[in-house]
């Protein structure tokens, strides 16, 4: 089973842990509803849509309200340290959480003792703290955007806010930045870098570039990175090998975006409904290639 850990932008939202479903475009979990705009709700929505298309069970969600004070994240960390010991997830995704080195270490201590060890995916705040802690290699997959890749490549920066200028955002330098991130031990086993072109890489360098279809507007749309992480997590959880899952996910996310005929003003909730059709198209193409 897939589990997703993250926050929602509502300080009143209580700690919930349970199966997450999608009803009329909203995430429903433990009797609570969350509108899908971006962030962890968008990740969950994409994962649920993928699960439907792949006939997989719905994901388990750990959610709490946090608007940046970190109070919610702290309660969620406390809960996880106890609860993860009792669960057996195939794939575990950490997402929008307040970075905190101490809590990251405690969560990692719990995960290290799990057998079998789940596939670990980190994005957003939890990817930041994994890097800050020097523990990136404990993860199977990071899903940074280009700005975050520059942060991973900067061995001195504790947060993307401090990324040094010479490393910042030059798309054609992605292979150099990837190499630098691995050189300093600041990358997961695999990287799926989202941008104008998506890059799939490991410590040997770029393994695949996914650049079709090309929709320039996607870069401006908040939540398209969250959907990519949700798609790849759902594919891994379905049993697809991680390398294939990453490449398929990048193609599906781009194609769904293209189906929505996006402008920079498009919202990610307009893209998510197109995910099943995009998945069907990509998998059909793969089957034809194999035959």
């Amino acid at each position, binding site marked *: 089973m897939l589990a997703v850990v993250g926050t929602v932008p509502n300080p009143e939202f209580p700690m919930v842990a349970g199966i997450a479903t999608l009803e009329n475009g909203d995430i429903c979990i433990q009797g609570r509803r969350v509108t899908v705009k971006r962030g962890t709700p968008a990740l969950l929505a994409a994962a649920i849509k993928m699960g439907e298309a792949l006939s997989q069970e719905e994901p388990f969600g750990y959610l709490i309200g946090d608007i*940046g004070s970190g109070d919610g*994240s702290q309660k969620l960390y406390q809960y996880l340290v106890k609860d993860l010991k009792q669960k057996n997830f195939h794939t575990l995704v950490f997402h929008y959480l307040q970075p905190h080195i101490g809590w990251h270490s405690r969560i990692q201590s719990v995960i290290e003792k799990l057998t079998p060890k789940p596939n670990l995916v980190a994005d957003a*705040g939890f990817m930041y703290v994994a890097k800050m802690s020097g523990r990136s290699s404990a993860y199977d997959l990071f899903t940074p955007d280009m700005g975050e890749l520059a942060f991973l490549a900067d061995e001195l920066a*504790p947060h993307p806010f401090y990324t040094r200028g010479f490393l910042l955002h030059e798309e054609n330098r992605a292979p150099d930045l990837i190499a630098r991130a691995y050189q300093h031990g600041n990358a997961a086993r695999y990287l799926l870098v989202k941008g104008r072109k998506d890059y799939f890489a490991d410590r040997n360098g770029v393994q695949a570039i996914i650049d079709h279809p090309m929709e320039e507007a996607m870069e401006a749309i908040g939540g398209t990175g969250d959907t990519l992480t949700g798609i790849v997590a759902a594919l891994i959880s379905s049993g697809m090998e991680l390398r294939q899952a990453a490449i398929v996910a990048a193609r599906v996310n781009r194609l769904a975006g293209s189906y929505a005929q996006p402008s920079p003003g498009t919202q990610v909730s307009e893209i998510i409904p197109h995910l099943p059709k995009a998945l069907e198209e990509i998998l059909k193409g793969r089957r034809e290639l194999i035959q």
Partner: protein
Amino acid sequence: MGAFGFLKKKSLEITENNNGDRGFLVFENTSEVIQAENLLKKKGWEVKVMGPPPEIRSGCDLVIEFPLIEELKITKTLQDAGIPPLQAVPVSSPLLEPVDLFQIKDFGRYLMVQAANMKLTVEKESLTIVNISGGGCPDVPYLAEQMVGKGLKEAPSPREIGHTLCGYALQLAYEEMKRRCLP
């Protein structure tokens, strides 16, 4: 969050120091840093938000660099405002500089400004904020909810309602967008 829970009490070792007249103020959390910066700038002090040295770093951290000679007056001002710093420490090694580069993308009808990991997009004609993307701290989805769909002049500033370094990066993108779009 007690962002500085791992704060070491010992004074930081002085090595090569090119900032001898500067100190940094340590706060309980990033929200207080942002409030304190607003207050001190309004009062006319030359202060800068910076990254803390590794010795006291625990997460999503910021400190305020300030003229050491004015420590007494500055800390009194902050105490009176209800945001006393946890500690005022001389700068003994280079502090991390916040990002100061912007990437601009012109989509024709839309303009996008990126600062660090945060991107802000407006429709040029109406000056409506149509999208916010990037970032990983939990205030980003909240900031987006509060700002998207509003005019550049009417939207709340990330400085007022944000809490984290991602919020601060969005503030920089927001200021740059205003500089480019507003008279």
